[in-house]
């Protein structure tokens, strides 16, 4: 069986990303200009994102149903493509500052993005596994990209060991599911009756594997260390890209396979509660900005899992009414990616050479020294907090709505409590920036320069955050389309 042209069309973005990855690696020995690679990388990520649009226009299953190109896939390809575009913009100045090789970084970024694209479009478990591995292995390397830094190496090592362990769970789960149903295609699995213990066990293992990737408690322990040690633009990528892709796959599996939806409501309920509390309570005592944002990432994964609980509780009666709950997940991932990219970019830039200034004390009096940056970071934090006129507010609102809609009032209340706990540590950063005096050294050092690439990231994420916070209609209408769910 040979690939038809239309099949290739439907995986165009992944092909483009891979091609650019290879091209960058190929050109690396010959071209010295760092700027050239940055432009190439920007071009590549844009081209891939544009490719997502054509793949969407020629949508449908590809490669005998291994991959599905529908609007759901389109949304996630757009998301991971934009994430990688923004990460390139932010990483250029960072790599220059840290004097790190530039081409390999972009190549790895491309492979990771392609992996996420595969993960989001996979309609079959082994294809999903390939996507997962592609993105994970690139991520392991990226986490340790600052080779001379002990923390970075530790981060890579930890991520690699625990990540491989989780991937093994995922793979074993696939094997068991295959044993139970005789297929790895999701739509065929949907037809199986789903009463066998083997299938349940397999799905549990898959859930554990993906739970690790999205940092759901109790599989979240790696997150703060890895996020802290990795170069900050990579952390930005981790918090936005792979997480979204893993959630995409989770949504596909646990929303389309009836066997999965029927039994897993309580699993998601418990996961959501554990994750929210683990993230928020952990964040309360952090003084390092990267760790604080890492814990906040965990908490936000918990909020998304609330929507998952809503999806799985509703999909029992048919998925038409579950559409708002899916939409809640998608919208949340979008708003969250925007905000986290913006916040981590600021943290990365303020960190200074060698990422020395990451403690919250370094942010004291930032509003006096760099009012613009302080205001931006405040907006991002308020969006994470879920205050109106930011995208984060609507994200949270849709999740609340999904939860209440499924009569999960207790879960909604637990989420509300967590939001308030979260408010405390986000506000603490704002308080430090606005209500404390700068240290003498910080004033002496003068304002940290913000190069144009970084400013572009801030502008894009800021505009997105406010725009979707005031007028979410285009996004929400798109993700509520019936075709989005593929059935």
């Amino acid at each position: 069986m040979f690939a038809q042209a239309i099949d290739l069309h439907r995986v165009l973005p992944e092909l483009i990303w891979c091609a650019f990855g290879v091209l960058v690696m190929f050109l690396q020995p010959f071209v010295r200009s760092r700027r050239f690679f940055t432009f190439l990388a920007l071009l590549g990520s844009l081209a891939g994102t544009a490719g997502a649009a054509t793949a969407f226009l020629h949508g449908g299953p590809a490669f005998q149903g291994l991959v599905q190109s529908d609007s759901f896939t389109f949304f996630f390809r757009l998301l991971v493509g934009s994430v990688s575009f923004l990460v390139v913009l932010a990483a250029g100045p960072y790599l220059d500052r840290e004097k790190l090789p530039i081409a390999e970084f972009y190549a790895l970024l491309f492979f990771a993005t392609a992996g996420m694209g595969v993960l989001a479009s996979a309609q079959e478990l082994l294809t999903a596994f390939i996507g997962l591995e592609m993105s994970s292995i690139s991520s392991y390397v990226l986490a340790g990209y600052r080779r001379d830094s002990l923390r970075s190496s530790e981060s890579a090592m930890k991520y690699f060991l625990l990540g491989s362990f989780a991937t093994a769970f995922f793979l074993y789960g696939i094997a068991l599911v295959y044993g139970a149903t005789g297929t790895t295609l999701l739509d065929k699995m949907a037809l199986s009756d789903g009463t066998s213990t083997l299938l349940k066990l397999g799905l549990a293992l898959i859930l554990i594997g993906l739970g690790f990737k999205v940092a759901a408690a109790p599989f979240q322990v790696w997150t703060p260390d890895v996020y802290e040690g990795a170069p900050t633009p990579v952390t930005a990528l981790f918090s936005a890209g792979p997480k979204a892709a893993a959630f995409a796959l989770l949504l596909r599996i646990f929303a389309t396979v009836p066997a999965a939806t029927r039994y897993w409501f309580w699993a998601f309920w418990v996961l959501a509660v554990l994750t929210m509390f683990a993230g928020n309570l952990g964040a309360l005592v952090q003084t390092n900005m990267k760790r604080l944002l890492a814990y906040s990432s965990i908490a936000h994964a918990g909020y998304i899992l609330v929507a998952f609980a809503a999806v799985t509780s509703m999909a029992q009666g048919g998925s038409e009414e579950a559409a708002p709950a899916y939409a809640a997940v998608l919208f949340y991932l979008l708003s969250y990616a925007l905000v986290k990219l913006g916040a981590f970019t600021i943290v990365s830039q303020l960190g200074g050479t060698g990422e020395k200034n990451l403690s919250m004390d370094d942010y004291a009096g930032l509003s006096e020294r760099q009012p613009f940056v302080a205001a931006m970071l405040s907006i991002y934090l308020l969006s994470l907090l879920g205050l109106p006129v930011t995208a984060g507010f609507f994200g949270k609102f849709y999740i609340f709505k999904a939860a209440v809609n499924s009569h999960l009032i207790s879960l909604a209340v637990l989420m509300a409590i967590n939001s308030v706990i979260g408010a405390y540590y986000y506000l603490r950063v704002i308080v430090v920036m606005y209500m404390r005096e700068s240290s003498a050294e910080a004033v002496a050092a003068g304002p940290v320069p913000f190069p144009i690439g970084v400013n572009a990231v801030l502008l894009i994420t800021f505009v997105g955050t406010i725009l979707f916070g005031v007028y979410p209609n285009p996004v929400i209408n798109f993700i509520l389309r019936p075709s989005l769910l593929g059935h």
Partner: protein
Amino acid sequence: MLSGGHLLSVLIFFPVVGAAALMMLRGDDDKFIRSIAMLVSVAEFLFSLLLLRGVPIGSSGYQLEESAKWITAPPIHYHLGVDGISMFLVLLTTFLTPISVWASWQSIQHRAKEFFVMLLLLEVGVVGVFLSLDLFLFFLFWELMLIPMAFLIGIWGHERRVYAAVKFVLYTMTGSILMLVGIIWLYNATGTFDLPTIQQMLTNGQLVLGSRPEMLLFLAFFVAFAIKVPVFPLHTWLPDAHVEAPTAGSVMLAGVLLKLGTYGMMRFCLPLFPEASHRAARWVAVLAIIGIIYGALVSMVQPNLKKLVAYSSVSHLGFVVLGIFAFHHISMQGAVFQMLAHGVSTGALFLLVGMLYDRRHTFEISEFGGLSTPIPKLAAFFLFVALSSLGLPLLNGFVGEFLILLGTYQRHWGWAAWAALGVILSACYLLWSYQRVFFGDISSEKNRTLVDVSAREHWILATMAVVILWMGIASPFITRRTAAATQTVMDQVEPQWAYEAARRVQAKPQPKNVSSSAAQTRIERLGIR
């Protein structure tokens, strides 16, 4: 098409324009910044006066409505409207904002631009809350107003400002997030966020909430509002926030923000959940009475003058809550009036306390004493405002408290009896503190050389005094305009009661009514049915 133009939108967004203009300015020309802020807030006040023309006397329902589709899924509308209650609260807000700007003329030197931006944004949030008729929009403004207030406390406040600001935000947010869950629940039951539509569904019987869900929904809303008011056990954020806030912040906080809670009870709790309101009324009244007495007693023993005024708010707002939950149209009228009166009087008290602080940099009563000799004018104004706050007839505080007690007495004489204790206590703590601050010998040498009110302070205080007096004398101007709106609330919460009351008066006038027929005619002249 809805008539009335876009006055309400203008009222909400005009300060945004002003704030944006301020942000464009260079930060070092404080004088120009102050003037612009003053200009914007005065213009906003003048705009809001147009509301008086837009809301005809005696008309029930919402006026000057604006409605536009905003978000499609779920259907959320940009729906604004005003009635007698919200009109005066908006007027109060737009009146106190220029006063706050004016009061901050000298005292705010540090980051003046941001200060006035925050003050104007606060006004946006508050006016938005009062004018929203869509639950979602209401919630949006409700949350939005938190951040400017937190910054006002946290940046320009006194020593423990950060603690107070964070406490303020966390308290309010706890309540409001639960309210969001409640709002969404209500949406699930009705399919709309539109307040008038939901009310209509309730009256038609299209929407019937079970008794337990109704109670839970009631609590979700009530707790959020009770934190804001604040009702007794949830009040602990208030003294901190008040004491640490700058003068303008305290004025806005006491004058307007606390009213958001009582306004919310009137606008949402009672009409949307009448059954639950009735069941909860007894407990709410107990809390309100505890608040009245407890607030007064704590005020009495306060060594800190600003804290004393803060606790007096707990006591006075207790009256408002009691008036609302007595379910009598007279007490409801009184509650609205008391909200306005308290806003002006307590605002003025905070201004005066702030002026004392500007001179002595302390709030401790023991540091003062005999101040009427060096600063007689300020002392005179203080006495005038204190008397209005304790409810001296002819001044504004009297009308509200009297109506509340009168209405409450008709329904539950026991509640009124306990609450009346608060009137006595408020006279005690205000006069006693006045005596300790202004009379007697000058105990501290520093107090001998204090300067009396400047021309600016003189004008601010005179304005407040005129309004206080005007509200006391010309109270029918307000009560006539709020009568229809409070009657609507009463009809929604207790239709059968109004009917029964009318019938009882017609059938056999009770002796009590005969003896108070003079009062009855007076009440009718006040515009209360």
